[in-house]
């Protein structure tokens, strides 16, 4: 019977020093890391940087993976933290770099249209708190269940449901205000 080796198993071997297992993990999850980072950062350059940082970080952190949670849950938490770090650093004086990267990014014609739509999303989401923003991206973008998102963000499931409720309420409020 052919079966695929589970993430958790691979992670365990990698943590024990197996380079091949580590590479297999990276190969399997890079795209997901990049996608999530793209949703959070809104541009390719930042997403690529975050994805690389996360991959390198994995080499250091793998030993801390317990194996009692889903690997992606644990991984997404790292990605989100990396994005938070980046946003924080950016806020303290890396503005020029960010703008440069963003402009450079939009030049790539293929991304331009999506970039515009993402800009709208970012604009909308920027009116909410960080908690709600992250929740929205994970629930709506990654289409994860409230339970999974709760695990990733380390809060109760009911908190996620409440945040989604707040998001809807806020959006409706804004729409009404515009009228």
């Amino acid at each position, binding site marked *: 019977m052919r079966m*695929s080796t589970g993430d958790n198993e691979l992670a365990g071997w990698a943590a024990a020093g197996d380079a091949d297992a580590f590479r297999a993990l990276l190969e399997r999850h890079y795209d997901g890391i990049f996608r999530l980072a793209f949703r959070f950062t809104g541009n390719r350059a930042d997403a690529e940087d975050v994805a690389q940082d996360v991959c390198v970080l994995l080499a250091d952190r793998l030993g801390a993976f317990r194996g009692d949670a889903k690997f992606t849950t644990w991984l997404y938490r790292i990605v989100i933290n990396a994005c938070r770090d980046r946003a924080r650093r950016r806020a303290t004086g890396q503005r020029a770099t960010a703008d440069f990267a963003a402009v450079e990014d939009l030049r790539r014609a293929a991304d331009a249209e999506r970039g515009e739509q993402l800009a709208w999303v970012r604009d909308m989401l920027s009116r909410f708190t960080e908690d709600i923003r992250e929740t929205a991206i994970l629930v709506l973008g990654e289409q994860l269940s409230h339970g999974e998102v709760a695990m990733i963000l380390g809060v109760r499931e009911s908190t996620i449901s409440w945040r989604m409720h707040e998001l809807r309420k806020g959006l409706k409020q804004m729409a009404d205000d515009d009228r």
Partner: protein
Amino acid sequence: MTDDFKRLKETLRRDLPPPDAYARRAALTAAMARFEENNASASQGIAAEARPSSSDGTGPSSIWSRIMNAMKPTRSGWTPALAGGASLAVLMIAVVSTSVMRPDLFERRVSVPPPLEKPARVDADEAAGTAAKPEALPEENRVARAAKSDPVTQPAPPSPAPMPSAAQDAMRSFGRFALQPGTVLGYAAPDAEAPAPTYRDQGRDRFEAFDANPVKVVAEAPVSTFSIDVDTASYAFMRARLNQGVLPPADSVRVEEFINYFPYDYAAPDSADTPFKANVSIMPTPWNDATKLMRIGIKGYMPPASETARANLVFLIDTSGSMQAPDKLPLLRNAFRLLLTSLHPDDTVAIVTYAGSAGTALEPTKVSEQAKILAALDKLSAGGSTAGAEGIRQAYALAEAHKVDGTNRVILATDGDFNVGIADTETLKDFVARKRETGVSLSVLGFGAGNYNDALMQALAQNGNGNAAYIDTLTEARKVLVDDVAATLQIIAKAVKIQVEFNPAAIAEYRLIGYETRVLEREDFNNDKVDAGEIGAGHTVTALYEITPIGSKGRLIDDLRYESSGKPPAEPANEIAFVKIRYKQPDSDKSTLITIPVTRADEVASIEAADADARFAAAVAGFGQVLKGGRYTGAWSIDDAIALAEGARGADRFGYRNEFLNLARLAKSAQAMAPLRE
């Protein structure tokens, strides 16, 4: 449900653009490097025993031959006569001798692993008596598909079949290093012989557009003024493109840089008082028998080794994701090791890295402290620490803080990302020019293709009194950082300008070949405020003019009908032209003038009678012009350039001229193919 919520949901759910294959690989490579680093301490003991004795090709002798291979100027140009090159190689081996046991100091070459043949693992499996052996991971299929859909990407080595952890420990104790050749995870060591196929950006290289210098009528504009140019980036870029099988974009071809890539055996000055000597000669033009070629050859003074000035070098290294490609950071790392061999033990080097944020990776360290420098060098890929300050200011601050009496230089190594902390190009140029006044100069080493910003590199190096070089192979690194290190680092004359006045009684028309981006106004020649190029120790600089004697059939411009010019003299004058050269001593603001009259005595009657250097320079000039479109070279072809250069190779101590011949042949086949998107 609000409309906005729906829109938010739909937009967020839309497919995102796929990750860039290149960035993906860079990330994986960086992560694997960190992984190996983290696990290195655990396996070191086994490594030291297993590697040298194993027959898998990683023993010391094969490392030696690999280094020798990498340092070979060309396939055929390596002879025992290359004493200089060879002894440097020996020196370098001495430097890394403690690391011979660690081949990982040199980037390993990717060897295609045998398809999932992992005997040691299978053995281990059986030893552990495990029957259920999971194999054929789904992502292998995915990788294979990805490789198919992206033919330029080198397929990643297939993931091996993982094994139950019960067998892991058994395997780790003996199998790990025997497996090494099949599980190589490093990147390719780019060398001239086996360029690794890698994904490349296309068409994002930026070059300043320019037209070839026009033909001038001596009666109207008898004076030609230009600044010398010792850069060679254009040549190396051309080579990199040709090695990929495509012609370089016409705007990337600067003929003078092609000519000046090669050392010529001109007579040298005797002392530093006259920092250089100029030689002028005239020969028939190979591509036009109605005109002649006037060559101005300058040779810089080469101080004896005991007198070379101390150097204080600060490397400002781009460590962004894109620099992880095998022909960039790994190549730079090896180039850096080469440089260490050619510096004085008391010279200092420092490293500042930048990739969004900047950090000092190595405080100024004496070259004698090899181990410390090499250790810092190995950590470069890790991304660098975050110190907050801007890269370029940090680099200059370090250089200024440790200023020596000699060369103080910042060396920027990048693949086109000038995100060094000053975003605006003009501000950056001004900054560099201002710092030049304080005695810190700037050189730029360019790496990789696809995003290469040539125009800015050139501008920065010119403003910074330094030079720009494009590093495409380890051979090129050796040329710039070892063979020419004196010329690269030690300036013996600055603001070198050449002005040629042609005698209308002897010459009807002239055309300066190349130097388009270096042309100066006539009045700039005597104005010491106008900066110009530098000459390094032992450097040769060559300029060629195509000149049309009066009465020649080869004139391109007719006489004016209404201009009552005096009748041309029956007998052409003996003095053809008057060459003036102005330069400043490195520490002076006042210029000195050298004058050389050019007479018929400097002329040879046939191409064959010209010296080999002149013929070779003519061949290279012709080749460069053909690549640029051949506006003035008529029916002359690359074949003619090859024929002319073939007989003019001379001693060719480093094999550069041989390499040129190979490139010219490559250009012939590349001509036949459709150009890549510019």
